[in-house]
């Protein structure tokens, strides 16, 4: 068959099964939760099918806005911390040769294929009052009473840093790998020193990749639920925790759904920023095609 007929061919039935499945099992449920956000809960606990924006207006109250800003702020600081640790890690990997590079990447990722809940449990038993850190510090007499890390904001930061680090290392690593070594050499030949080459050649060439990588860590952090729940205690609730609370504790599904809607809008804005920045049309997940 010629190429012209390929492009105008209708989408085959096999693909329709997949698209139908995604529509039914992902998009439709998502539409339902969005639709729910425009309903209201009556005082007796039933749903009132009176479409309005009350839930969204309510979500702009101070207490919810505070949670929103706190979520964005913690995710931002955690992303920057990931960057601060992830950049040297990626830089070292990119500079390693052959099997060292492969081994380094595999070593970086093995912990992430152990169960997620288990990794959190590992952190809990490390950071708790009877945890490894406190045991060691108490044993050597460095501290007299256990330091509180678990169930504080520090705990949340450690949890986020621990769980997201490799996902930032990989995009930085691949941008460094794509950098033509001749560019650096040319810089040296023209008399630049190491610092100048780093700031004026390496950084400008990888900053887009680093930025997109950061967003792909930042975005899922915004929707985080388990880490603040298990490492932060009640005080450090994210938007996701408040949402689940509305569903299961307050039994207010419409308002919980409105928070889901708000979170989706937040994600859309971030994604939109990403597509604008990367100058690639449509949705594109960095690295999927690498």
């Amino acid at each position, binding site marked *: 068959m010629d190429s012209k007929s390929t492009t105008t061919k209708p989408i085959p039935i096999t*693909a329709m099964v997949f698209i139908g499945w995604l529509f039914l*099992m992902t998009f439709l449920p998502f539409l339902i*939760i969005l639709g729910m956000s425009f309903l209201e809960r009556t005082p007796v606990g039933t749903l009132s099918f009176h479409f309005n924006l009350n839930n969204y207006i309510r979500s702009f109250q101070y207490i919810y806005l505070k949670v929103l800003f706190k979520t964005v702020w913690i995710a931002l600081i955690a992303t920057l911390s990931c960057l601060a640790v992830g950049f040297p890690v990626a830089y070292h990997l990119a500079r390693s040769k052959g099997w060292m590079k492969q081994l380094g990447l595999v070593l970086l990722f093995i912990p992430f294929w152990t169960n997620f809940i288990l990794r959190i*449990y590992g952190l809990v038993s490390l950071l708790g009052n009877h945890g490894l850190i406190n045991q060691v510090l108490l044993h050597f007499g460095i501290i007299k009473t256990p330091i509180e890390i678990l169930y504080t904001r520090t705990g949340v930061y450690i949890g986020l840093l621990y769980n997201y*680090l490799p996902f930032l290392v990989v995009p930085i690593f691949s941008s460094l790998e794509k950098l033509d070594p001749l560019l650096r050499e040319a810089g040296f030949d023209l008399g630049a020193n190491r610092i100048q080459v780093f700031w004026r050649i390496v950084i400008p060439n990888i900053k887009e990749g680093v930025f997109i990588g950061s967003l792909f860590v930042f975005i899922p952090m915004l929707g985080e639920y388990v880490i603040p729940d298990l490492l932060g205690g009640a005080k450090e609730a994210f938007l996701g925790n408040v949402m689940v609370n509305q569903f299961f504790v307050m039994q207010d599904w419409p308002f919980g759904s409105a928070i889901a809607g708000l979170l989706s809008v937040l994600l859309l804005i971030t994604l939109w920023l990403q597509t604008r920045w990367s100058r690639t049309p449509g949705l594109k997940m960095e690295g999927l095609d690498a």
Partner: protein
Amino acid sequence: MRRSNPFVAAIFFIAIFLLYTPLFYLILQTFLNNPNDLKSGFTLNWLIKLFHSPSLWEPLMTSLEIGILSASLAVTVGTLGAVGLVEFASLLPVSIQSLIMLPILLPEVITGLSLLLFFLLLRVELGFTTVVMAHASFSASFVYFIMLEQLKKLDPQMAEAAQDLGAKPHEILWKVTLPNIIPGLMGGWLLAFTLSFDDFLISFFTSGAGLTTLPLKIYSLMKIGVTPELNGLSFLMICISTFLVLLLVSKEQSRKWVLRG
């Protein structure tokens, strides 16, 4: 100029060390008389206890069954999608592309809650079936991307040759395409299985009251307060996960996904 400076190398090694510390500590705790006291001496009791507590074996079996079924479903659906869309992959409208990316991009907490609402509205009883469906709904897209890559590597002339020799479309699919993408199928299945076996949040919302998967069991034990059995269980889970990773890394098609997390 190839060597990176010692400061950068030090950060790398410290970071790797810290990534492994919680896991090694969990393994160590399994063998401590008092898991919260390093000086309490060693024992095998917790591991022995683990093998005698049915309350922990049942969730393991449930997780395995859900993993096998949801991975099979996801591979079927995802592969059908990739087979059908491989010719169009680069010129798909943004709406379809977004639909395929949606399960990957949507925060799990939203996916889980929206599936919960969906099942409740349909009046489906929450339990084994809903968890299998939910897991297959998010892993199908991952399988799709793996299969798409595998299919792109196939020589299109093979299918054309089969067509010229008189094969019907379904015969081409079964006798030409399928045998050539088996490595991808195995990689995709393993990835989908691992995603399902690992999943906590989606199961948390879609499992209802009666069903307990292994991650759900760990979570509830953690919420009650840490029990020594939990440490035995962690040890077992770490063994299973390490085994799965080694399997995934050994497959060319899924290696890339392992290194992406």
